[in-house]
């Protein structure tokens, strides 16, 4: 089976720093993920996530800062609530909320980023393909 494809929206104050640190440490990672740095997790549009799923991407990760640690006056709280609601829609339709990984405050360090990416790859490999939707 093909390796899953992952798209990552990484807050530039947190997840992106983790991704960058993993790079600086030259941690070896599976290659089929792409990172789009964002100003804040709250800038991630749900439509973009759906667009990505429709475009054949298997999993989306949104990496933001921990609760209470947002540079933008808790904007990430709003994002979490919204994205959790999107997970509900994904569950309703059988796409499954596990395709949308929400990680807040857990990808700040290189090894955390590594772990998240690797686990997400493993998890996605187990999921049925999205084909019927395409």
């Amino acid at each position, binding site marked *: 089976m093909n390796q899953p494809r992952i798209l990552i929206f990484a807050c530039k104050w947190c997840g992106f720093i983790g991704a960058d640190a993993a790079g600086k440490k030259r941690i070896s990672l599976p290659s089929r993920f792409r990172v789009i740095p964002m100003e804040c997790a709250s800038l991630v549009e749900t439509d973009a996530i*759906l667009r990505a799923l429709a475009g054949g991407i298997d999993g989306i990760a949104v990496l933001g800062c921990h609760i209470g640690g947002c540079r933008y006056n808790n904007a990430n709280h*709003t994002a979490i*609530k919204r994205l*959790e*609601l999107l997970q*509900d829609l994904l569950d309703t339709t*059988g796409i499954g*909320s596990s395709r949308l990984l929400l990680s807040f405050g857990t990808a700040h360090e290189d090894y955390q980023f590594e772990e998240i990416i690797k686990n997400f790859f493993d998890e996605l490999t187990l*999921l049925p393909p999205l084909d019927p939707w395409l």
Partner: protein
Amino acid sequence: MLEKTKNIARQILEEKKASAVFGLMRNEWNIIQPHLFEDPAGLANLVLEPKWLLAKLAMRILRSSPENYKLAVICRGCDERALIELIKRNQIEKENLLTIGIACSQEQAAICLCDRPYPEKLDAGEKVSGVDPFQDERVRKFLIGNDKERMKRWADMLKRCIKCYGCRNSCPICICEPCKLEDDVWVQRGVVPAETITFHLIRAFHLSDTCVACGACQEACPVNIPLLYLQLGMRKTLREKYGYEAGLDPETKSPVLSSAFEKPDTDREFPDWINSLREEDES
């Protein structure tokens, strides 16, 4: 109920509380259509059935009228909720709107899968209790099972879509111009059936916290896709997690727009709504 509604409407017109009453009329060819009653005499032809959502039309009428034009709308529960959402979203001036709320019958509620078949401001008719959509046979049959089965069901269903935009056009809350569904960035243009994930889920999610479960989208769909089912889970989550329901009062903002954390909850295995389907799953 009809007589009572007529009386209220007449009173409103006679006392000049509103410039017109907006409701349904049986015309001389026996066809029912929305009508602006400006003259109390015309109210003889007022009817209340069938279900016909007037919120969006009312909004358009108010928009194209002079500032001090007041409209009284005869509305069912869902219609009232839609009007309230439109007030919340600055589409209707609160002062320019009066409602004459009428209750729906038990049968209607069952058809609509409606959990609130009455307006908050009830003027005519008796409240009947709502139905829990998750206890409904049709919903259970459609949403039960594992992801794979559900996905299959939705995929088969959504393949029927002819991309007529009826769902969006009929939805009282879908008021954007331009709309993202017509933007190539989000939904490929000229592709039929519509790209399923983007077209349907973008629309569904835009209404996540504003959907009043009126079912207009579903009723407008020429190929009978149960579009309301898309909203049910999110509506249930909003109610259970945040105690929020769209369209109940114009002051309460959606919890998804605020950073206040009522209950931090990121550990989720099952969607909350799935619990109500559980028993059957196990038996």
